[in-house]
């Protein structure tokens, strides 16, 4: 470095310094963040880092009661799959069930007990201790009138149900209600009326050759969808010579708006809403008239069904005579054929009549108690009485009136959300205001909990002890244990423990000595074990086995032939459906159906369910109105036009979706969205069609007739195209979904259709 003068030297030093600084910061900026290894102080014995642990448990997302096995890594739940050992879902699981993880890890969970501190409804809660929350509740309970105490729970079964019973018994109140929006009251009522059996039989779709479904969306949310899907798949292609002589099952769906089951069916038949019962009778008439029924009560039937000639029925239902007679022929010939009814068909004012008529069909083809038919279940091992606690709309109205009249002092709500699933017209929300004390055990801040005074958040089903006896069963008694798969995330407690906590506070200990749900459960299962149990070994090994396999069953099927209730044949008739609203003023019948992803709205706070495209329309996030394209065309409505759906009881807004498979005078809306609570993913999204339902009830069962509301559509002039993942929904002859005429296509068929024949290397290549 010759001739560097002072100034230059300084310049160079500056350059070097700045450069060094820059280099330093560069290195700093691209540095890998520090990570930590944090071992347990004392690890649980089944735990080892890097290796997954599976726990078998029971799904709590819907009443089907599937068995699940949950994969955990490093003490965190990673994946829910079906429990292969469980007879209901046999290792399979629906979308909603798998989203249970997002119930557990939901960012909007209630993290601990809270006390209402301000006006009800304005979400002003302050944190409290369990001690505080429980004693506060206990005080209110102690102070309350015996018959002024209501417990309103989601449908619970097994030992939790028993615990509730015990608790109510001690409280001296029998005001214990289970409320599920989708509970199939009409089906129970129909079975009671026709068979004298107040239960859900096992519908053996697996082995049936011909399924006639009256409005029952058995593949997505009717009774036990996963089990039905298994059956569907098997009946379609699973049949080989061993079962069903390799005949491919045929499926017929009768409903005003094509559901998933409708899409899966071979034949979708739109019948006027509420007339499904007539159609059933028409088919029955045919079967009897053609002399396909040879029972000794044939003459009775002939007289009972005389009035239901296919001509008349065709006029009533809008289904052609030819179709009716064909259905009758096919159905009777199938052996075994199976008829099921539910969903919208059961939710008209004549629902029970309809379902009784459907039962009649099963009876007439003699599939009762047979494979591929209707098989009745033995009573559940325990907690069976809970079914009688199920509240229908009338019961709820009763509760509401009591509340208005100030007859309710304390209302305990357990994870059910009537404020969302009851029509506005029912006045439930107003009634809540009249109840002095409301205690909510919900894990989330849902619409009902928002009105509560004391929040005692319960565990999610993945953190709690419990058990479940699935209904409908599978023909024999099944019990499944639900065990905690992860340590509780927050300061919540299992429902059972909360009840037991109250028990302690109220001093019911001598009657209810248990201190934790686990003990209660264990003792309960000791009974099950002792009732002539066939398992070898002592109870502890039995208990361990049950915990490992997650499910228990015994081979005790119902014997004997089923007799139908006396006088039912003579009384065989279907009353005409009633609808609220004049057809002139309200031209459309509102067909509100349970959303595939969100069931009755409980899935709306799960991001996966929000982003699961609706199978029929591929719409995510939101509510929409499905319309027949022709009708929409007449009204000048286009896809995505925002319309106001108005019934006698209110109105909501939603965009129109042109739906090719819906009757011209019917509009359909999915239930599940339109929450004004329940966390960030659910709040202020879409609309809730239940809100505008008229409080029409099913005459026999007293259930809410959700399909009995007429609505009018008014264009708002605005557009709000629903967000959807799908583009053009026609194939344009590109042969994407291909279909073949019959089961046995000529050989080499596929080779012709594909440029590349599909070859299988014969030998297994051992990799060196």
């Amino acid at each position, binding site marked *: 470095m010759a001739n560097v003068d002072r100034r230059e030297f300084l310049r160079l030093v500056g350059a070097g310094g700045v450069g060094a600084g820059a280099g330093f910061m560069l290195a700093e900026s691209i540095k890998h963040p520090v990570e930590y290894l944090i071992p347990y102080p004392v690890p649980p014995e089944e735990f080892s880092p890097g290796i997954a642990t599976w726990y078998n448990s029971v799904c709590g997302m819907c009443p089907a009661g599937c068995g699940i096995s949950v994969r955990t890594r490093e003490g965190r739940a990673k994946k829910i799959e079906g429990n292969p050992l469980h007879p209901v879902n046999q290792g399979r699981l629906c979308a909603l069930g798998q989203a249970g993880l997002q119930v557990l890890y939901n960012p909007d969970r209630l993290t601990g007990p809270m006390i209402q501190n301000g006006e009800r409804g304005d979400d002003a809660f302050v944190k409290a201790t369990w001690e505080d929350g429980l004693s506060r509740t206990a005080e209110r309970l102690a102070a309350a009138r015996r018959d002024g105490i209501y417990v309103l729970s989601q449908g619970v079964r097994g030992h939790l149900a028993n615990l509730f019973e015990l608790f109510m018994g001690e409280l001296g109140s029998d005001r214990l209600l289970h409320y599920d929006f989708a509970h199939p009251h009409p089906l129970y009522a129909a079975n009671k009326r026709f068979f004298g059996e107040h239960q859900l039989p096992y519908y053996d779709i697996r082995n049936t050759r011909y399924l006639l479904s009256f409005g029952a969306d058995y593949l997505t949310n009717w009774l036990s969808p996963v089990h039905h899907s298994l059956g569907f798949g098997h009946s379609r292609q699973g049949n080989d010579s061993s079962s069903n002589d390799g005949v491919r099952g045929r499926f017929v769906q009768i409903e005003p708006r094509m559901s998933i089951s409708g899409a899966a069916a071979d034949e979708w038949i739109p019948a006027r809403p509420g007339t499904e019962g007539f159609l059933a009778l028409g088919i029955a008439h045919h079967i009897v008239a053609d002399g396909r029924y040879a029972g000794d009560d044939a003459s009775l039937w002939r007289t009972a069904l005389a009035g239901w000639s296919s001509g008349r029925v065709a006029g009533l239902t809008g289904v052609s005579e030819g179709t009716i007679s064909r259905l009758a022929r096919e159905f009777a010939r199938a052996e075994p054929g199976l008829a099921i009814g539910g969903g919208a068909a059961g939710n008209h004012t004549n629902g029970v009549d309809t379902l009784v008529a459907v039962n009649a069909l099963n009876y007439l083809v003699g599939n009762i108690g047979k494979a591929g038919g209707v098989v009745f279940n033995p009573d559940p091992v325990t907690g069976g009485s809970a079914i009688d606690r199920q509240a229908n709309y009338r019961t709820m109205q009763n509760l509401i009136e009591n509340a208005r009249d100030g007859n309710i002092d304390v209302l305990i709500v357990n994870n059910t959300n009537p404020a969302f699933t009851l029509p506005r017209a029912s006045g439930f929300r107003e009634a809540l205001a009249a109840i002095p004390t409301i205690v909510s055990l919900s894990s989330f801040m849902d619409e009902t909990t928002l009105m509560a005074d004391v929040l005692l958040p319960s565990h999610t089903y993945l953190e709690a002890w419990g058990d479940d006896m699935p209904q409908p069963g599978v023909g024999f008694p099944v019990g499944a244990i639900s065990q905690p798969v992860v340590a509780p995330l927050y300061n919540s407690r299992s429902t059972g423990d909360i009840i037991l906590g109250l028990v302690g506070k109220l001093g019911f200990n001598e009657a209810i000595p248990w201190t934790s749900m686990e003990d209660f459960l264990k003792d309960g299962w000791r009974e099950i074990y002792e009732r002539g149990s066939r398992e070898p070994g002592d109870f502890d090994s039995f208990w361990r086995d049950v915990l490992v396999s997650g499910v228990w069953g015994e081979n005790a099927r119902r014997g004997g032939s089923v007799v139908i209730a006396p006088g039912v044949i003579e009384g065989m008739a279907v009353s005409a459906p009633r609808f609220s609203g004049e057809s002139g003023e309200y031209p459309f019948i509102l067909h509100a159906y349970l959303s595939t992803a969100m069931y009755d709205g409980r899935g709306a706070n799960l991001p996966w369910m929000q982003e699961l495209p609706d199978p029929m329309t591929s719409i995510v996030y939101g509510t929409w109105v499905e319309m027949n394209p022709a009708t929409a065309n007449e009204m000048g409505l286009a896809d995505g036009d925002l319309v106001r759906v108005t019934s006698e009881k209110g109105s909501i807004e939603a965009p129109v979706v042109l739906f090719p498979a819906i009757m011209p005078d019917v509009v359909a809306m999915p239930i599940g969205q339109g929450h004004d609570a329940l966390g960030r993913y659910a709040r202020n999204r879409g609309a809730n069609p239940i809100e505008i339902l008229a409080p029409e009830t099913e005459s026999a069962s007293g259930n809410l007739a959700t399909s009995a509301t007429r609505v009018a559509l008014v264009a708002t002039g605005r557009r709000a195209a629903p967000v959807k993942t799908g*583009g*053009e*929904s026609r194939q344009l*002859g*590109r042969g*994407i979904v291909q279909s073949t005429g019959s089961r046995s296509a000529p050989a080499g068929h596929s080779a012709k259709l594909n440029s590349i024949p599909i070859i299988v290397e014969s030998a297994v290549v051992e990799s060196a």
Partner: protein
Amino acid sequence: MQTEEQQLQFTDIHNDVVRSLVVTGRGYYITLGCAIFVLLTCFFFPWFYQLYYGIGAAGMNSPTVWGTYLASFIFWIGLSHSGTLLSCVLHITNSQWRKAMYRSAEAMTLFSLMVAAMMVMVHLGRPWFIHWSVPYPNQMELWPNFRSPLLFDVMAITTYLTGSSIFIYMGSIPDFAAVRDRTTGWRHHLYTLLSLGWRGTDTEWHRLGWAYTFLAVLIIPLAVSVHSIVSWDFAMSIVPGLHQTIFAPYFVVGAIYSGTAGIVTVMFVLRKYMNFEQYITKLHFDNLGKLLLVLSLLWSYINILELFTGWYSGTSTEYEQLKYKLFGYYAPLYWEMILFCGVAPLLLISNKFRTSFVPMLVLSIAINIGMYTERFLIIATTLSRQYLPESWRVYVPSLVELSIIVGSVAMFVTLFLLFVKIFPSVSIYEVKETMKIPKKKGMPEWQATH
């Protein structure tokens, strides 16, 4: 063509050119300032935002995962053609009128190539890993995928960039020397470096001439190959509407077409604002106009052909594609393109139009707008109509994209403004050659041949 240049003396040329380098008006600085400002605000700012936020800042979606960035890339590559290409062709065919304009044309090539390279960076999801697309030996023995047309692209463009920069540099060495001898201060030093000690001896002239011609021959096929390869990025796919044999010629013609139009624009600007009226004359516009006319006809022909392939294919995929292009969401753009690039250029049939400057300017700009639209449509119409109808989606460019398009133009302008102050934007020695001079002993044959 001697008419204007009769009274023109060698010294005038020197003075004019040196003036264009040394004397700088306020106007220049204002323009440059604006250009740089736009470059920063409309290009770099949105780009950095996109780097931070992700490509989501652009309007692309699935299946239309390519968008205006790639369209701009093709556009700039296209513009780069006919700069150097044209100058080479004309050099070999020894056409005199080339000499006044070729340098700025070549500069255009260079700069549009640079902008194109930038567009690639903008297009990438993770540009900080772009070096992986270059084959360099490494311990992992990881190589780029040599089957990939995109990799061909990288190769072709770098080669083209190198080739054309050498070409323009060599061509200007004598001028650097000339300027060197007429400047002082830092300019003198700069041009001393650039002129590599050029003395102007016969041997030097001889070698220069030889090498120059050699390069010219070399570059012509290169230029053609570059845009063919760019077209393969698309044609090698099996996407309906892209998977076509016509694409390579289609792209090359389109490229030269837009490039020539670009030259017209640049020439106009130079002529007007650098006061080169005497050098860039009606003649140049006339010739370029003829060239444009031919190219436009070629272009229209290929476009019609393309429609036929869709029509005759008889497959739903191609047919829907065609329908969508003509009457679909982007149809207005399509017809705009036809108007600008297919119909409007027919005006060039009239001499009067070709030889009047302003209309030529307008037309040339219109053509390039049309050509940009073409590139956009090639991507937008095809990708949004892929094989599975369920995946069909419309793609609308976002603000970020639009501003980056504007910014890329600013980048080009900036580079060009800097160029005219550093490079003699009109070739001094070649213009001299066009003037009557006594045949001296020792003058290279290639010079004496005209």
